[in-house]
């Protein structure tokens, strides 16, 4: 490959972009992966602990414990966001902090906090879902498409089998 400095890179955008890529500080992928694993794992482990508490201490059935567990995780994510800790955990742990449900709660809480200065209706109400919006939109749309496909397939199969 041609050395990026062998011609006037300011006349050649592609050559400059190659040079820029070459000079980037590389991300420590292995270290980042390890950190993400630790943070994501810790959050999930904590979630499991919460479920166990609801099951063994408060006598919920495992299925009944789901919703309270999620609510508890949301509570802590929002609390940490408000205390200014979540973004530091996120910078260190990367994708480990994006895991649902805590990541989702953080996006909504952080958006709400920032837009409070524009009032509760247009500010908080209008912007709370700014970062989480795509998750909801594409989650619902894809669920709809999958359900549609499944129904069609079921219909066809039943028709073919004659039942």
């Amino acid at each position, binding site marked *: 490959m041609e050395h990026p*400095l062998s011609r*006037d*890179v*300011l006349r050649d*955008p*592609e050559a*400059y*972009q190659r*040079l*820029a890529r070459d*000079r*980037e*500080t*590389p*991300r420590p992928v292995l270290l*980042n992966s390890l950190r993400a694993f630790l943070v994501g794992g810790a959050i999930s482990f904590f979630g499991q602990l919460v479920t166990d508490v609801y099951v063994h201490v408060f006598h919920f059935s495992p299925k009944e414990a789901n919703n309270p567990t999620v609510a508890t995780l949301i509570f802590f994510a929002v609390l940490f*966001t*408000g205390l*200014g800790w*979540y*973004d530091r*955990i*996120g*910078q260190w*742990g*990367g*994708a480990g*902090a*994006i895991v649902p449900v805590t*990541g989702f709660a*953080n*996006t909504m*809480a*952080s*958006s709400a*906090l*920032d837009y409070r*200065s524009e009032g509760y209706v247009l500010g908080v109400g209008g912007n709370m879902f*700014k*970062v989480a919006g795509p998750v909801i939109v594409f989650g619902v749309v894809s669920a709809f498409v999958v359900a549609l496909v499944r129904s069609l397939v079921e219909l066809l199969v039943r028709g073919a089998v004659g039942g």
Partner: protein
Amino acid sequence: MLDVRQGRTWVFPQPPAIFATATVGGPREKEGPLGKVLDRAYEDPYVGEKTFERAERALLESAVAIALRKGSLAPENVDLFVGGDLLNQIVSTAYTARSLGVPYLGLYSACATSTGGLALAALLVASGAAATVLTGAVSHNLAAERQFRQPTEYGGQKPPTAQTTVTGAGVAVVRPSGLPVRIRAATVGRVMDMGITDPMNMGAAMAPAAVDTLRTHLADLGLSPTDYDLIVTGDLGEVGRRLLLDLMREAGLFFDPERVRDAGLMIYDRERQNVLTGGSGAASSAIVYYGYLVPEMADGRLRRVLLLATGALHSPLSVQQGESIPGIAHAVTLERE
């Protein structure tokens, strides 16, 4: 008619002087290596205000008030105020102009606003259009994050090439005479866009503009980098600086890398503080130039310095629309009398 043109550079036959300067900063700037040079450092990122946007305004107003006090000037003595910030419609500067009550021209060169304003201020004074011009720039980390990137408490991870917007302001008063620090020449840069699209690597987007303006400025003046004690860019950061040095070598410039510095690397200690590739924002250059370099020159420790602030001229929307990031750099040569 006053003829200051030498190529694309303005060279002032009677160089205007920096009359007074003032710089203020936030908590991170106070902890940084230049914390002591700040006229005022605020522990509270809200600066006692209700919103980050108001805080940014308060920072600029504070710097302006301190500069006027240091120069024993009243707002009425100011003929023109030329400044800018990073927020939409440069509101912080507009509201500061409101409280100042003087003729105001808002300027947007992103993080190159400091030297853009200084160049304009020098031209206004040299041409006789104004006797006292106030110029400066302000930025606030959290206001910029909110506008350009993600909510301030969002848990996303930034790459090592990302920068940390400086919270603070730097202003200067320019007059026909004042401190023994003269504005010898200024080059208004042209926009350079080499197709960089990553807003988390603005250093790469701005380096081409820096070297383009640098080459023009030096060629027009007939000077080389070795004629300067220091060449200080505004906010290229570690990554952008690497690219600048590459481009300078490739341009055939002879220089000592130790004398090519970056304000974003001077205002923070990258080892101690989590600032990724360095400081950025309109205040990065303004604080270092007006708070550190000008006083060093006034005290006789520096003789000739090139201020080369750099800016990334994208908008939050342009990036989302897939546009690349255009860069710009304005150069000002300061000389000790």
